[in-house]
């Protein structure tokens, strides 16, 4: 077959995929961009003609919109850090205690990854709401017994995002564990042996041998988790407060409940732009990880 026919066959085979993605991803993206500057009339209440009012309103410090962005970044950052500490800590524990990653432990760690998002949110809702185990534990032990506060803090629908963080950490720590565990296994054991022969103790070996060799893996798992949590909807929707809102919930409320489509589309474009930057960082860190190991 000639090179030309080969290329034609390639195009024909990928054509359904390209058409699908153009229709389902690029068209809505273009509509969101154009609508955010008033260049379409696809939804009621959009301005008639070009305007940057949506962006001015979003970045206006007098208005509460920026709060949603900071809240999203703050909660995502905190959840990512905690998931990383838990996942990486567990990897180190398993590694240095020489615990084999048997089927039981492997399935146990993977369980949160396989659990549907909405069910995960519901599970944590059932644990944290005032009649849930953790809710009652906080009320009975910390408030009634130790009298640490006058009344129990709300653990769901709270302005600090406690429920969102608790649920997100549970859902995402396995990602760090699985990525870092496979990378740790790839590190040549003779490095550790040599370090031990020279008198290094476990913390030094972690700091001087394993950490530098797996840093790009850690970076890529952190970025992956950050992105996944940043664009999440189900968890903040179920466990979040009415204010401050997660950016995804903010878009939903603006567009569907308030009918403020201009703010809905503007926030969507900003949201997509930030997400694309994070995924670019992820791709770079992944490339470095591949080159490094």
């Amino acid at each position, binding site marked *: 077959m000639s090179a030309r026919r080969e*290329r034609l*066959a390639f195009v024909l085979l990928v054509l359904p995929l390209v058409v699908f993605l153009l229709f389902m*991803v690029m068209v809505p*993206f273009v509509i969101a961009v154009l609508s955010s500057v008033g260049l379409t009339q696809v939804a009621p209440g959009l301005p008639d003609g070009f305007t940057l009012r949506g962006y001015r309103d979003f970045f206006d410090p007098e208005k509460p919109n920026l709060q949603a962005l900071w809240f999203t970044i703050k909660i995502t950052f905190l959840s990512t850090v905690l998931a990383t500490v838990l996942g990486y800590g567990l990897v180190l524990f398993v590694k240095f205690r020489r615990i084999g990653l048997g089927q039981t432990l492997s399935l146990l760690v993977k*369980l949160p990854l396989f659990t549907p998002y909405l069910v995960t949110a519901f599970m944590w809702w059932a*644990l944290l709401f005032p009649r849930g185990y953790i809710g*009652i534990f906080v009320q009975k032990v910390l408030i009634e017994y130790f009298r640490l506060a006058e009344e129990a803090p709300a653990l769901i629908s709270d302005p600090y995002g406690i429920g969102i963080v608790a649920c997100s950490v549970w859902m995402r720590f396995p990602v760090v564990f699985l990525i870092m565990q496979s990378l740790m296994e790839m590190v040549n054991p003779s490095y550790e042996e040599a370090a031990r022969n020279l008198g290094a103790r476990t913390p030094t070996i972690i700091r001087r041998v394993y950490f530098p060799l797996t840093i790009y893996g850690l970076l890529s798992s952190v970025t992956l988790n950050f992105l996944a949590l940043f*664009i999440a*909807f189900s968890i903040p929707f179920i466990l979040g407060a009415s204010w401050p809102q997660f950016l995804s919930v903010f878009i939903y409320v603006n567009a569907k409940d308030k009918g403020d489509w201009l703010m809905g589309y503007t926030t969507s474009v900003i949201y997509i732009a930030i997400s694309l930057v994070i995924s670019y960082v992820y791709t770079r860190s992944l490339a470095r990880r591949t080159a490094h190991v």
Partner: protein
Amino acid sequence: MFRRRHSRAVTALVLGALAVYVLAPVFVVLEYAFAEKWFPSHWWFPQELGWKWFREMFTVGNIMVTIGLSYWIAFWVTMSTLVICVLAGYAMGSRAFRQQSGAATRFMEAFVNIPLAFPAIALGIGLLPVFAQLGLLKSVAGIVLAHMVTAVPYALRSIVGAFLLVPPELEEAARNLGAGRFYTLRRVHLPLVWPGIVGGAVFAFTWSLNEFVLTLLLGYPTVETIPVRIYHYIGGYYLSPNSAAALSLFLLLPTLVFMYLTEKALKAGGVVSVGG
């Protein structure tokens, strides 16, 4: 001696804490699903266990329609995703094509991953006017298309990975013996890449079954799937954690079983394992 016993105790303690941490949320859902009587004064465990919430679920309302519709949509998402991804996966993963169209393949690989970086809600409100214009809003066909947006990149990754692992000599030998491209695909590639296709299909199916935001935005109230109904049990005006828990098991159990079986099947001896 003491040191070793102490070390074992620490290991048991940490792994025990991990088990409690991971399993506690699942346990609570099971408790709610099977609790017939659970008074707050006996908050540590239900007083009576039984099937009340499941019976109620099947007799009251149209839950069976919701469950049936969820699985029906997931079936069509899987089928449609496979059609698109097997064709594209063959083009992007087969060595012969990669040699000819390397740059195009790399571009496609990057292009396909774009939906994964897009927040579903942002995509959803962009799709709203498109679907409204085409009559796809609040329709099963529209929801199938919407669910495919995220199912396609993951399924494709799995299928391309499987095609990449097919030894190029096999394809070359078949072509040298006069086999056409379609015959080579059918008789050489497909028998070898089926684990990757199964992996992609399982992902597409479970993804669709669990998808929430796009269904809520583009399908509700005409198209109501299990996640949307669960949301109404815990986020609506009438709170019913027991009903939500019972219904959650229709999502949780199939997902866990599918994932477990797929992983086991792929490890057990597929020539080609799932990529990505």
